[in-house]
């Protein structure tokens, strides 16, 4: 039986990024991400891992080439359409970016509230998800009163509550101990099994091998795809 080819969900074509009075971050970068895939985005510090994720969630425009998201040219997406694209993308930020005056449950409920879902329903769903990640005791506590690991789980819950098509995680294992890091990665794998495309940016190059997923290696403005158990594949 022939397996149906997965659709391309993200595509970079000769993409370049040059900051004004700054460095050339990317130069003719080509990359294709299929729906339902799982990638580790690696590279040395300053290689542009976070910047590449920013470009995927439409927080940074390229200065050359083309980026296609869900079949749409990123530069042709109108300002008022950006929120609807972002609702298909869940992001776990390196610094969590939790809203300090809101409780844990309200932080997680935010993506549902902005979609117009009744706040009570949104809070109920958020509470369920927080229980699932083991934070049922801190539902009404403000994030700054919690540990780094707890904050990270809140950030992850917020990223996944809207059932995104793409999940981007920027150094999700950077601030937690090994045990929690493993749990988080297993959680991402579970999400990937349900069809979510996952891209995890990490400086830890051992992870792709441990988890048996392909690696996108960024260096000197280019992306190199390293398949599972394989050797570097030229762009």
């Amino acid at each position, binding site marked *: 039986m022939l397996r149906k080819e997965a659709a391309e969900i993200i595509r970079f074509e000769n993409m370049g990024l040059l900051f004004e009075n700054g460095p050339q971050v990317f130069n003719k970068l080509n990359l294709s991400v299929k729906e339902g895939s799982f990638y580790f985005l690696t590279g040395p510090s300053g290689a542009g891992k976070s910047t590449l994720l920013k470009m995927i*969630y439409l*927080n940074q425009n390229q200065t050359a080439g083309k980026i296609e998201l869900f079949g749409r040219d990123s530069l042709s997406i109108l*300002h*008022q359409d*950006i*929120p*609807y694209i*972002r*609702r298909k993308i869940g*992001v776990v930020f390196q610094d969590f*970016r*939790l*809203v300090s*005056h*809101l409780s844990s449950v*309200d932080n997680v409920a*935010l*993506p549902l*509230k*902005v*979609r117009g879902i009744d*706040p009570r329903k949104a809070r109920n769903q958020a509470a369920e998800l927080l229980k699932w990640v083991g934070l049922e005791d801190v539902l009404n506590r403000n994030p700054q009163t919690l540990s780094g690991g707890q904050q990270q789980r809140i950030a992850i819950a*917020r990223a996944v509550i*809207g059932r995104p098509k793409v999940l981007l995680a920027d150094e999700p294992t950077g601030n937690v101990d090994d045990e929690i890091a493993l749990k988080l990665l297993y959680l991402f794998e579970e999400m990937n099994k349900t069809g979510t495309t996952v891209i995890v940016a990490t400086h830890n190059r051992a992870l792709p091998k441990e988890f048996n997923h392909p690696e996108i290696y960024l260096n000197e403005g280019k992306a190199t795809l390293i398949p599972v158990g394989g050797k570097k594949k030229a762009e």
Partner: protein
Amino acid sequence: MSLKKYTDIPLNADPSGRFVPWIVALMVYLATISLTVAFVVSSLISRWDTGFTARLSVEIPAQNAFDPDRDWEMTKIRGQVAQILLRTPGVGTVRTLSKNEVLSTLEPWLGQGDDLSDLPLPTLLEVEVKDRDIVDISLMKQNLSEVMPGIMVEDHLGWQSGILDLAHSAQIIGFLIVTMIILAAVSTIAFTSQTSLIIHRNVIEVLYLVGATDDYIAKQFQYHALRVGLRGGTVGFLMASVTFVVLKFFAKDLDTTLLNEVISNSALWSVALLVPLFVTAFMMMAARLSVRLALKYVL
């Protein structure tokens, strides 16, 4: 509609916006008082418009008493004066005021008493004007002076229209003040919204990143303006109500019926209630529009 839904941005905690409800209260209070003044002036205008019909007074100077010849002569003069007046184009009717009517006009100065009836009194004629534009007052005066020197013509219309113009101007100024107060409230909320956008940039960025639209963010500011407007508006309305009650108390003592009537007027109270609602509605619109523009072109 739950306002709790729109509290993702902690706008209530802004130091810049802490005094806004008090500013709104003061503005609502001033707007309500200005409108009340406009109401009083408006009532005065309508009274004058109906009370002062187009009239002239003609005064024939008093003659010595107890002189039967002079009495006969006065009757003749009155007749001639009345004829001249009735022949004047634009004049409708002419009526001679009775002795009692003339005495009543003197009472405020001379008081009541039998002695007054012995005084030599002027003869007063009330002239109703049909068409003010064609009555030639100076020609009328000239013709009357030929009958008897010293006959005076009192033209109410001149100063009456002057006062009416002044009253209309006061009314317009009252409404202009209200408009300026509303504009000031609107500008205050627009500027504080801009400041809040900068203060809460981080939260707004998070909202954007989780898929919030400009409209969702603008609504946070709009409903904050609603809360501030209602809070300040209620305080302003209460302050104005207290002022009305105090004025009514003093108006009763001073027997100024007009002020009393205006304050008891249900239309004034309806307008006083509408002022905070109008100010709040304008503030909501200002907050929403200024934030939407800033989100589109600045942030």
